[in-house]
């Protein structure tokens, strides 16, 4: 397969699956085609990674472009997408069996999930910053009805907040894109290619600084919205807690990272246009603020899914701080965190979805003695939570270690210290809540937990992936280091 065709696969395969789901009347067909599409994305990601090396490939018509960083993101989309679509089949079966949803709504769900995956792939593969914006906004559009899938008052509320807040943020990013386009043209770029990433990179040093500052600032805030960065973090917990579990997994595990990968592109641009200080300070302040808010809200959290959502926020804060460091090691560590976080969130949200299904509630107070009631789910959640808070042998540890070393190299040790103190508070909260749910005897009258295959398989696979990523060196970390170089890391 030619490289430019290969690049189209991550966008095309989910769209094909979406079409299949739209016309198919058989649930098994649409389900399997969805899983197949995710696996195709994963395979394409790996193939792209193998092909691009340390350079980049631009497809025909300058619509798509792939480099190592994009390959990493495609792989993340593929892995988490596969886990989430697999769990999605079970989720829909259960909802249909309970009569909680209709076949039409189920079809809508499957179509939208695939469109969502396609939009995310486009966001990381688009060559044109404007198209990137279109793709990111498309993720909002695709997920709006997924968040509101359950049609309760709360999910409606969450959807409204999600759409309005994200739209405001992302529109600001568009404003930034427009201003950047203006600046790019005035820096001598041709109007048709003024927003292409390579053109921008080559023209960066000629951009008018004042205009570029405004553009970059708006883009950082705007794309930061979808990454959950402060102050546009307010949609996140509501949307993640109300969405169906597999969708939460995708949003928390991938969407945030995809948005952040755009922030990373903007950071690379800002570094060459404005010098390294501007984006670094912005990311540092935003990252630490995000960490602070996330951790504060973790402390007395009462709902498992909101807990997971705020822990995603916490990870995004950490990632932003790491991006501020901007060294090769820090960025590579960041990408490892992104990968691991995607997988761990898939595991945890899928497990949480199962618990919510069984208990009819995701309130922490209602979930007791899980380890005793279901050793498999208990162990998976326990491993997931330990992995989430960054303990070895899970992959987040390796990422955080690399970030810490990168930050020390970048003379950001004080910021690292502050971030770690906040992370310890977050750790304490998660451990506390986790212990309350998992350990000890179950409360009388707790329903039995029967873990079905669509839950067990992705959960176990996810934990295994997490351990492998955390223990083994080899090609993947190497790819991450290449990606970091591509993203302009020093």
């Amino acid at each position, binding site marked *: 397969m030619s490289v430019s065709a290969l690049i189209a696969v991550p966008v095309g395969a989910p769209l094909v699956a979406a079409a299949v789901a739209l016309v198919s009347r058989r649930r098994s067909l649409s389900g399997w085609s969805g899983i197949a599409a995710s696996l195709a994305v994963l395979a394409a990601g790996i193939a792209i990674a193998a092909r691009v090396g340390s350079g980049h490939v631009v497809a025909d018509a300058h619509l798509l472009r792939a480099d190592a960083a994009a390959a990493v993101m495609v792989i993340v989309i593929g892995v988490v997408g596969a886990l989430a679509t697999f769990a999605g089949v079970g989720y829909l079966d259960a909802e249909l069996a309970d009569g909680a949803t209709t076949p039409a709504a189920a079809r809508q769900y499957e179509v939208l999930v695939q469109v969502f995956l396609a939009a995310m792939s486009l966001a990381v593969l688009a060559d044109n910053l404007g198209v990137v914006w279109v793709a990111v906004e498309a993720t909002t559009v695709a997920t709006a009805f997924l968040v509101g899938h359950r049609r309760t*008052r709360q999910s409606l509320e969450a959807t*409204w*907040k999600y759409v309005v807040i994200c739209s405001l943020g992302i529109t600001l990013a568009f404003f930034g894109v*427009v201003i950047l386009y203006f600046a790019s043209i005035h820096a001598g770029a041709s109007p048709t290619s003024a927003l292409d990433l390579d053109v921008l990179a080559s023209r960066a040093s000629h951009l008018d600084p004042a*205009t570029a500052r405004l553009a970059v600032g708006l883009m950082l805030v705007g794309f930061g919205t979808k990454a959950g960065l402060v102050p546009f973090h307010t949609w996140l917990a509501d949307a993640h807690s109300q969405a169906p579990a597999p969708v939460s997994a995708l949003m928390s595990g991938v969407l945030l990272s995809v948005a952040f990968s755009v922030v990373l592109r903007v950071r690379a641009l800002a570094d060459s246009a404005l010098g390294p200080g501007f984006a670094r300070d912005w990311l540092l302040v935003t990252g630490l603020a995000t960490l602070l808010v996330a951790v504060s809200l973790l402390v007395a959290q009462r709902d498992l899914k909101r807990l997971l959502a705020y822990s995603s926020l916490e990870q995004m804060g950490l990632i932003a701080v790491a991006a501020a460091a901007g060294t090769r090691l820090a960025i590579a560590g960041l990408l490892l965190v992104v990968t691991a976080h995607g997988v761990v969130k898939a595991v945890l949200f899928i497990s949480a979805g199962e618990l919510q299904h069984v208990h009819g509630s995701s309130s922490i107070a209602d979930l007791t003695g899980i380890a005793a009631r279901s050793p498999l789910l208990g162990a998976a959640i326990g491993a997931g939570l330990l992995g989430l808070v960054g303990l070895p042998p899970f992959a987040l540890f390796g990422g955080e270690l690399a970030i810490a070393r990168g930050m020390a190299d970048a003379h950001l040790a004080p910021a690292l210290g502050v971030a770690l103190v906040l992370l310890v508070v977050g750790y304490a909260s998660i451990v506390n809540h986790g212990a309350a749910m998992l350990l000890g005897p179950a409360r009388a009258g707790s329903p039995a937990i029967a873990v079905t295959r669509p839950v067990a398989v992705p959960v176990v696979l996810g934990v295994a992936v997490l351990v492998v990523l955390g223990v083994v060196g080899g090609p993947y970390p190497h790819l991450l280091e290449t990606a970091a170089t591509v993203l302009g890391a020093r």
Partner: protein
Amino acid sequence: MSAHTYATLVDLAAGALLLSAVLVVWRRDLQATARLLAVQGAALGAIPILSGIRRGDVQLAVVGVAVVALRAVVFPKLIAVRLRGELAHEREGAPLVNTTASLLVTATLVIVAYALSRPLVRLDASPAARAAPVGYALVLIGVFLLVTRRKALSQVVAFLVLDNGIDAVAFLATLGVPVVVELGASLDVLLAVVILGVLAGRMHAKFGGTDLDELRELRE
């Protein structure tokens, strides 16, 4: 079209944009704001059409027509349809800040917008670009409206004002962004507005109103 006429017409369109935005701030009635939105859309669409005519750029003129169709016709229509079934008091914009204060803030925002757009105007002294600060002002006013309006549809209106502002900057300063971006962005905005409309409908059905203060169940 002479340069002077062009400049005058563009200035006029820009003036209409700003005026309609200020009036949106002023008026509480949602139906009136929907009509103002139509005017604003038409003024916005006029800018690429004028530029297209002046430069003989058909594509640009077509884009202008599309903008007019979308922003002067479709969006106001969507809002009007959604409003039809509602009671009179539901059509009130119900701002958090009273009108006088809102207008004062708007004046401040316009001044900020002029200051903010100085670098842009410095780079490009064309007549259209000199009107670009109006776009900035619309963006800021849009944000302000979004923050202070408590009804679902009034937030949609605010969102559209904001979007119009960005488009205005695009057309005034750079004759629009690349077509693929423009198309994609318009589609996205359309879908977002449609989604918000549907959600407002569901909200009406579930809550018996679209007062956003009702949306306080999910909180910390």
